[in-house]
């Protein structure tokens, strides 16, 4: 398994080598992944806004004689564009307006008891901009409470945020001794329910009523009990069947913006498990889901229909070899530190290892990845605690001048803000036209307006012909509305462009049906002709064989070759004659071997699109190796054993017998390869089945052939066959061992020499 993972990692690395990116004016490249895990460059979706990060100086904190921000832990934006920065070490919340100018500092407030109060290490904020629960909620971590403030939108400075309510520590019976109420992240849904993440709690997310009373824990997946365990537990009277929760530590929460009552949660995974996480990442198993979308009942309702599970970086290598050239590059799965919900059901996560932002749509399709670690504006500073701490969408109406009328109007603006914790600053990214077009397409898609969506996807494709999702959606739309063959062909081309074999198969079948319908007569005629030819060929072969059987003397090559047809159907008697009557020959055997190699090469290169969407990498050498290596291993190994076991066959006999046994392979391999051109989807089993039949047939022939050649009894024959197989393994092992040793020696010597020559 590990080896497979390694090979997979190597494949990724190989693919990546071939896809360089050009430098752009933004200090990072934006990219996506194709269905097959290839990195594809994408137009920038978000670009840094302004000239510099927003920090204490640009906010104006310094000018007010204030203290600079220190270790901020969270950023949050409300619907008016105000941005709340949780300045944790200074025990305050810094509020800036939509232009990132100073608005207010929330530090000292008079609490419900009329007493001056302060925060103790606040960690995050949440805002509700309208409705009954409107207000600013602050997780006051070490005071074990959540405090709500009323928002006075137009006021700057004092009075902008007035204390409204304290949600004190609720009565919770934590089952584990690690459990203590330390709120670090909270959201409030449209019904007023509060969802709270408590630091270190492994039981999931805490749900509170709008009055702060404890309801339950949600979001920790139940342990699945295996059937065996269940039986043991049922049978064994001393154990009780118990479904415990998997310890799950959430790190951050976000309310789903579209519906207002689902909650995104990011989960902290144990870094030690990265190996299994990596496997799950590529195999799309959803046990590893660093982001969940939970409904009020705690069920994960996230759709994961994208090419890869939405878990950040896809092409990851675990324990990547650190070389002088790639020092400091991140390895392993993404560390998802925060999630934010945007318009049209789009959501983004922040990878603290890579300082990258991954954006997905409602269905879990990866839209774009951008961001980088570094010292340029738009990049996030790397520090001991990673790069980047929090992320939020900032969506609000901005004043703009209407181009035609000259009147001042409201214009919706979408930005993404990332909190650079170690640099105590905010990096603001503004949406580009490409992201807007993409959002439009997704919007139509979400609303079920597929016709409009098609137009929008077309627009997306024109701007980014690397975007597989758009190809797939376009293909689907065209297929849905297909009127004629041309439409089907177009749809097929779209799926081909995205390497989407499943949809390809569907359309291909439609096209195939169309062809069959149209040319039914020709098809029938074709099949009849084909059958006729087959019958004729076999008939002819039979005739030649019959004539040759009685002829005696030296046989022609034609006779030796056609004898193959006889052997494959009459093995006992065929092999007897092969040896005793010299019906076959070495030259014919070699020709059979060559035919087999050619057939395998054809299989390598000639399979239909459905089977090898990315084209073939087969070469004559590689295909010859797959045939010749096992062949010779068998012959040599068999010869070794049968000589010991009084076999009557010489090396030449074994060679010829085995080569004649190969004959079903080329015939059926070619047939199956031809079939791959027309069979797709579930039908793809048929060519596989044919190949299996060929192998079984061949094995059968070999066994019989050996028995006859060596004049063994059935029992002895089986023993030698088993021994031969074991012998093949041993020979392989020795050869591999030898090669490895040699290569190790060479690399050792070459390393020593190069080291000596450099020093």
């Amino acid at each position, binding site marked *: 398994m590990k080896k497979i993972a390694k090979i997979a990692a190597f494949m990724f690395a190989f693919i*990546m080598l071939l896809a360089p990116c050009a430098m752009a004016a933004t200090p990072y490249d934006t990219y996506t992944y194709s269905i097959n895990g290839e990195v594809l460059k994408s137009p920038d979706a978000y670009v840094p*806004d302004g000239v510099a990060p927003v920090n204490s100086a640009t906010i104006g904190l310094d000018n007010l004689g204030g203290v600079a921000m220190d270790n901020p832990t969270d950023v949050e934006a409300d619907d008016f564009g105000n941005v709340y920065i949780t300045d944790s070490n200074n025990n305050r919340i810094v509020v800036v307006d939509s232009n990132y100018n100073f608005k207010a500092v929330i530090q000292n407030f008079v609490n419900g008891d009329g007493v001056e109060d302060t925060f103790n290490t606040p960690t995050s904020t949440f805002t509700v901009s309208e409705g009954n629960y409107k207000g600013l909620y602050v997780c006051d971590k070490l005071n074990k409470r959540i405090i709500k403030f009323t928002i006075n939108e137009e006021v700057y400075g004092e009075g902008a945020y007035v204390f409204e309510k304290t949600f004190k520590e609720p009565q919770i019976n934590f089952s584990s001794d690690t459990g203590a109420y330390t709120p670090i992240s909270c959201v409030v849904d449209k019904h007023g329910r509060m969802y709270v993440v408590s630091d270190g709690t492994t039981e999931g997310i805490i749900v509170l009523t709008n009055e702060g009373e404890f309801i339950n824990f949600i979001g920790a997946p139940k342990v699945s009990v295996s059937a065996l365990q269940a039986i043991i537990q049922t049978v064994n009277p001393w154990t009780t069947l118990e479904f415990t929760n998997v310890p799950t530590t959430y790190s951050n929460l976000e309310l789903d913006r579209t519906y207002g009552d689902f909650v995104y949660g990011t989960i902290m995974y144990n870094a030690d498990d990265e190996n299994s996480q990596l496997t799950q990442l590529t195999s799309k198993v959803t046990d590893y889901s660093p982001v969940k979308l939970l409904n009020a009942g705690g069920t994960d309702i996230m759709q994961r229909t994208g090419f890869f599970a939405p878990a950040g970086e896809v092409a990851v290598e675990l324990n990547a070899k650190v070389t002088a050239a790639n020092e400091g590059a991140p390895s392993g799965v993404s560390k998802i530190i925060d999630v934010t919900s945007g318009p049209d059901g789009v959501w983004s996560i922040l990878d603290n290892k890579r300082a990258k932002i991954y954006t997905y749509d409602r269905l879990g399709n990866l839209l774009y990845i951008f961001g980088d670690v570094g010292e340029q504006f738009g990049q996030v500073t790397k520090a001991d605690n990673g790069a980047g701490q929090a992320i939020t969408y900032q969506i609000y109406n901005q004043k703009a*001048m209407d181009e035609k009328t000259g009147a001042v109007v409201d214009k919706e603006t979408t930005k993404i803000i990332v909190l650079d914790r170690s640099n105590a600053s905010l990096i603001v990214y503004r949406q580009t036209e490409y992201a807007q077009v993409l959002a439009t397409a997704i919007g139509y898609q979400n609303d079920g307006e597929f016709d409009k969506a098609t137009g929008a996807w077309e627009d997306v494709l024109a701007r980014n012909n690397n975007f597989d999702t758009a190809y797939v959606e376009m293909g689907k739309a065209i297929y849905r509305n297909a009127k004629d063959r041309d439409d089907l062909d177009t749809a097929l081309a779209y799926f081909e462009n995205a390497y989407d074999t499943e949809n390809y198969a569907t359309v291909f079948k439609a096209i195939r049906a169309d062809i069959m319908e149209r040319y039914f007569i020709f098809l029938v005629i074709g099949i009849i002709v084909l059958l006729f030819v087959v019958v004729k060929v076999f008939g002819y072969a039979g005739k030649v064989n019959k004539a040759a059987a009685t002829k005696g003397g030296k046989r022609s090559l034609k006779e030796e070759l056609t004898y193959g047809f006889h052997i494959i159907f009459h093995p006992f008697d065929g092999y007897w004659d092969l040896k005793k009557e010299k019906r076959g020959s070495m030259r014919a055997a070699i020709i059979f071997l060559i035919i087999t190699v050619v057939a395998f090469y054809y299989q390598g290169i*000639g399979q239909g699109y459905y089977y090898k969407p990315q084209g073939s990498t087969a070469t004559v050498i590689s295909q010859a190796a797959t045939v010749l290596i096992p062949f010779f291993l068998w012959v040599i190994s068999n010869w070794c054993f049968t000589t010991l076991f009084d076999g009557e066959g010489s090396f030449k006999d074994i060679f010829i017998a085995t080569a004649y046994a190969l004959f079903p392979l080329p015939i059926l391999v070619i047939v199956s390869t031809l079939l791959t051109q027309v069979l797709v989807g579930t039908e793809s089993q048929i060519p596989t089945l044919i190949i299996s039949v060929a192998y079984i047939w061949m094995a059968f022939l070999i066994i019989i052939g050996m028995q006859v050649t060596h004049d063994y009894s059935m029992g002895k024959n089986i023993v030698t066959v088993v021994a031969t197989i074991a012998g093949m393994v041993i020979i392989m092992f020795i050869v591999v061992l030898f090669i490895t040793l040699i290569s190790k020696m060479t690399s050792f010597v070459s390393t020593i020499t190069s080291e000596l020559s450099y020093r």
Partner: protein
Amino acid sequence: MKNRILAALLAVLLVGALLVPMAVGASTVDHMSDTFANAEEKLATMTYIMTSDDPDKEGEGDGILQLYVDNKSGEMAIKNKVTGEITLSNPYNVSDVFPATNTADKGYRLSQVYVNYFKITSGKDAMSTLYSYNDCFAYNQGKISKTSEGIRVDYSIGEERRDYAVPLKIALEDFYKAMSEGGQSSTQIEKLVKENFNIYDPDQVYIENKLLSNPSLTLRQEMINEHPICLETPFIFLKPGIYASSYSMEVLEAKLIAANPEYFVLSEKDEDGKPIGEKTQFEIDSEELWDEAKDRENYVEKEYPNFKFTVDYKLANDGLIVNLDASTVEYDKSLYCLANITILPYFASAALDSDLDENGNKQYDNGYIFIPDGSGTIVRFEDLIAKKQTGKLTSSLYGSDYAYYQITNKNTEPYTMPVFGMVNTSGEYDKGYFAIIEDGDALASITANAERYHISAYASFNYAEYDTYDLADAFSGGASSSTKITVVTDNYYEGDYRIYYKLLTDDKYGFENTYDTSYVGMAKLYRDYLTENGSLKKITDVEENTKLFLEVFGSIKVKEQMFSFPVTVDKELTTFSDIIEMQEELSKAGIYNNSFILKGFYNGGLASTYPTEIKWQKVLGGKDGLSDLLDDADKNNYDVAIDVDFSYSYATKWFSDYSNSKHAVKTLDDRYTTKRVYYAATQTFERTSGVAVSSASFITLFESFTDSIEGTKIKTLATRALGSDLNSDFDVDNYFSREDSKDETVEFMKLATKLGEERFDLIVDTGNAYSVPYASGVLSAPLDSSKYIKASESVPFYGMVYHGSVEFAGNALNMEGDEDYMLLKAIENGATLYYTLAKQNVEELKFDSDYNKYYSVSYDFLKNSIVENYTIYNNAMKDKQDKYIEDHRFLNDEDEDCAVTYLDGTKTNNSLVVLVVYEGGEGFILNYNSQDVIVEFGGEPIVVPALGFEEYSVKEAGVK
């Protein structure tokens, strides 16, 4: 090459002839403790050397600048005798700002030269630095002499450890004898012995100050076992601690010489055999004893790296020319690698956070550093304070060198111009300087430096080239760590490192022919400098409309299935006739001054073999198609350029004039190398398919190329990497340093353009300074800076220098994340527009891993946007094509004359609204905000749309 050697020889002869030994009174300043209130006080302690010559006058010494030097530290001062302005090579206030004990930091600030070196056996991770004050002048190892043009300093950096006339091991009796003969009392001798030596005498064991008057038997036996000779000859050993310290050795030596001068032999002998020179050896230091000593390892020779070279400081009438002749560099090359040399790290440095004012607030100078990062960037001193972003900002010139294993410039814009500068506006007058690296630029890197108390900018130069490899690469096993090994070259740079510091003076003194102390002034200065030395020529006749560069892709190799067999076919992306059609169509929309750059039209399309012989792609129309296109271009007056990449080879072919073994770049470990790009997914650099070709081969290979295109009417070549990539070649037989590579590239471009005659016009990428004089167009020119967080704003320095002389464009607009932003940058820099296009089958690009970065190149889709953007751009810029950029400023609230507000009434305080003024006073106000702004600036308020611009006439508005 020949010319260079000749020039160097001449220079040496000249300077040598003019050398006059300098007679100067010794400076009495104690550099570690004396404080100075200002530069004037510091100047008063320095020695006057000379006054500059005015190039316009005949006599000597009638210029305005005067050079002073401190002969104990090498510090220099340049005084403008008209304004009284003083520019110091090192800050005057080191003793003020650093505590008395911090001699190290003081010494760094007092140094004119730093050398970075490492010991070869330890590898480059053991890099350390020596400083010209701490490690040269502090030991009196610097020699300053006066030349006819200024001063020459012979640096010997790194303590020169000499042999001390101190015995390491001597028989006790001999020592007493020698000392007592010199008249020392036995108490005195005993004291001397006990302080400095360990005594090995069975009767009085005395080790490390512990007297064991009655040594125990075991101890005594131990000593005898170890040093049996002590039974016969009791002896003394010099204490290792004394030996290790030069200071202690010097003191001890002085004491011993004072005690008995007779016992010291002199190092040299005169003609009569009479000893003269320094006293180096204690006569009776006995070798036999020494050889027997088992604990000799205590006296392992400490290492004394020492680097010698000569620097000339020449005074010009507008500044200082610093020249370091690399052929004078001397050091032990078998032991050390001199990685780089930094010159004048604190020239004209500004104060950072140095003093408290009367209110107890920290103060700092106002002003900025200019560095040529991309289009140019300024680092404002106040931003360094506000952002708490002190430290260094360094980059090498001219981008990456792919002959090296390690590449570092990820996501950054290249430094294309060998210049930097500084403006200081805090005093009563503005001052500053602008430095031009005149020689050694390909080996240079430029640093903006803000560390405790001082801000400065400087250049460093690579000397010995070295590289680090992973040995573990050889093992296939999955080792997660690797063995690194550093390889150092055997070839060294022999040319000069020369920087010309031109001083800028406040225009309030009313000097004629001086430049404003600002980045605008610097740009004009550099523009004039380049124009005067013939590198730039102002455009005289221009087309009516601005140029549009259109890169078009030819054909691409595609795998197709034919009757279930895979075949590779050439798929056309743009045919020759497509281009004719595109030109027709665009002309109808008013875009006819086009320059098509044909990429991938020969030798197999986009992944073409090296252009030593050219076969035009049949599927695109073949040779006839090309002729038709060139005829049409002639007839309809548009340009067609052929993209030929001489710098990289993408596919090799048998029996071709090009072969990797003959022509490719070799790394220090003798391998081929490829271009590398930063790869976003893994955040590392990955190799591409392009094998780097040595510039040494360009000219030969070019001849094959010209032969093979004989008969075609090709006039323009897009030899793009010549302007952007500069690779060394560490081939042992034909070593080419980066500087050699630069010279050869220039030679090649000269040949290809054959200045004066008609040959090829060349279009290059990026426009590294050396390539621009020979280029008719520059693509992918940097129009923005790297936007380092440490830096403040990007300035269009590139545009201010080149617009009006060279036609250049930024990156292809359709490949930019933010078209509107880049369109503004184009207008700010005076760059024209550029697109990358293909007419058909664009989706095929997705399947080619080298070309799938071109995600949107469809001409049919982009047509409208091209017309739209070009029209906006052309209307704004068509009458400014031959006009220099005259002024540039940031419009914001801090400026008294102007107010910028958002539509919601909030005032802006950022630098996102800029004014750029072209010759004649016409210009634009550009708004980089993502929202609309109202600008009030000398006249009616103007609304400038988000990421848009408005025309603005300085003349009409009546502002200066």
